[in-house]
């Protein structure tokens, strides 16, 4: 990518170190507090506050609504914090057999998908990242293009295949289908992790006569674990949040995932709007993901960074 800065222009500036220091400090921290400065600062902090409120408010609102007694929920004007707190809605969620079954189904499917994708993906990524074989580049391109595959393009034919194999409305069927988006992603990400490791790492082991698989297991794997944890979390989030396949390939409570259940969730109450219970269900479905993301947030941001820089 070309930079549109003229290097000559930058080089031609003749300034002494002390002058430069002065400029630098005046540029980075404005010690003077004149009115425009203060207004700028106030504006800046207002903007920051707006960003935080904008990103967090909807989830805050879901939590507040899920804790508000039904009578307080449907009042005008809206109250921004609860006057009294109730756990009734959570009780409704956790005693709803269908929803609990869906939570279990989602957990089973997501964990299985992650384990399978990580197992197959690590082997494939090791070969693609560290071994030399003909056709490697073609395989890499194939995997990369698979990461951008639109699910809707294969929905119908998958439906037919699943019916033929008796996989329709089963959890194992869903696990296999979810590999369409988790496996290429896992292989691609882990390949890049393996490639980024210095070449010298397993050379010594190989010179000493270790087999490539030993080199993978003893030397590369321990170093790849942080990358694998992040990849596993991202694959888990994708599987947990998936909706289109789950909507299409499940029919009964025995295989419905939590996203389908929550979209159809009405709660037990027949005569009132189910919003509060729905919000409680929404919080229950989201909290596991948020905990995971907060635990590895630095790595996720670093991953995003690397992705963008690649340009």
């Amino acid at each position, binding site marked *: 990518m070309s930079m549109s800065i003229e290097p000559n222009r930058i080089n031609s500036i003749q300034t002494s170190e002390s002058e430069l220091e002065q400029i630098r400090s005046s540029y980075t921290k404005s010690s003077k507090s004149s009115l425009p400065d203060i207004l700028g600062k106030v504006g800046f902090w207002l903007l920051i506050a707006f960003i935080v409120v904008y990103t967090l408010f909807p989830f805050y609102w879901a939590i507040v609504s899920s804790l508000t007694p039904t009578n307080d929920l449907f009042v005008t004007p809206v109250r921004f914090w609860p006057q009294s707190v109730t756990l009734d809605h959570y009780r409704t969620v956790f005693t709803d057999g269908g929803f609990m079954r869906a939570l279990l189904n989602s957990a089973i499917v997501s964990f299985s998908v992650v384990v399978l994708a990580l197992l197959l993906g690590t082997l494939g990524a090791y070969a693609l990242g560290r071994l030399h074989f003909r056709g490697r580049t073609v395989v890499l391109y194939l995997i990369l293009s*698979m990461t951008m595959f639109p699910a809707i393009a294969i929905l119908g034919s998958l439906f037919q295949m699943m019916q033929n194999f008796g996989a329709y409305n089963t959890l194992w069927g869903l696990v296999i289908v979810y590999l369409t988006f988790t496996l290429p992603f896992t292989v691609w*990400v882990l390949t890049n992790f393996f490639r980024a490791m210095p070449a010298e790492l397993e050379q010594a082991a190989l010179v000493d006569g270790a087999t490539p698989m030993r080199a993978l297991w003893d030397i590369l794997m321990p170093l790849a674990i942080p990358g694998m944890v992040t990849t596993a979390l991202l694959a888990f989030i*994708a599987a947990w949040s998936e909706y289109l396949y789950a909507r299409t390939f499940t029919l009964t409570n025995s295989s419905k995932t939590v996203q389908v259940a929550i979209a159809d969730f009405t709660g037990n109450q027949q005569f009132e709007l189910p919003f509060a219970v729905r919000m409680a269900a929404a919080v229950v479905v989201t909290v596991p993901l948020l905990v995971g993301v907060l635990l590895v947030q630095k790595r996720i941001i670093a991953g995003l960074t690397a992705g963008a820089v690649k340009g």
Partner: protein
Amino acid sequence: MEPDISAVEVRPATPRTSEKKRFSAWSGPKTAVGRQQERLGWLLVLPSLIVVFAVAIYPLFETFRLSFTNQRLASVREVRNVGWENYTSLFEDDLWWTAMRNTIIFTVSSVTIEAVLGMVVALTIHSAFRGRGLVRTSMLVPWAIPTVVSSLLWDWMLNDRYGVINSIFIRLGLMADDRNFSWITNRGTAMIAVVAIDVWKTTPFMALLILAGLQIIPGDVYEAAYVDGASKWQQFWQMTLPLVKPALLVALIFRTMDSFRVFDLIYVLKQGSTDTMTVAIYTYQLLIQSSRLGAGSAAAVFIFVCIGLMVFGYSRLITVEEN
């Protein structure tokens, strides 16, 4: 593919070690050891390749094949080839073009707003301030919330009588106190509502990507511009924007592909309502709800080709690896 995942490709930077050096531990393919490596390489890749072929590539070919037949789901009717009939009837269907128009409106407006807002947010967060880490963390929240859940959150917030959004608008005096305006069910505003939800969910992600691009711009570039007396505005247009362009472009293309195949966000709120029907929803209804596998496959092929063209554009921007 589920939008969330492609949105966060974790891609460690391209390694600095050259190909030659990286593989210097291995002998060439002509030696016995080299042949062994070659075998091992294929052996390790094979399981992944088999899965990808079985659940993605084969079904894709099936979709192509089915798009030329009159196949129905779970039907014993005799299947016959119908040539291009599915495609011609697709292109004659007004609903398909409505869906296409909606999809394009949704894609262009959400991606544009996300790019502009994302840039503003990224530039704001780029400056050093106390609590910056916390702000960045908070920005991961909308991204981590499942799409279905975020639709439901906003469905409640946009509720006509008891929704918090209408309440805020009334307090600000932007809306009359009749409290009955339903953003999602009203035909004129439904699209605005779904774009707003998508913007909320994805702008933070866009901002983080742009921020990553901003962070690799060396600081002395700005010092030089400052010495030269360039205004902040000039700095932005003539330095920041060109330098952050690669990161922005990658983010834009990813978002465009994701928006084009949008399904969950809208389907949860509006199902097949024509005012917000997208091409993915149209195809879903044809394939699954009407069981018209052949006709639906033609629509699916069309979507695949559109996204394929976008991927092609994307692949020209990045380099995988060249031996």
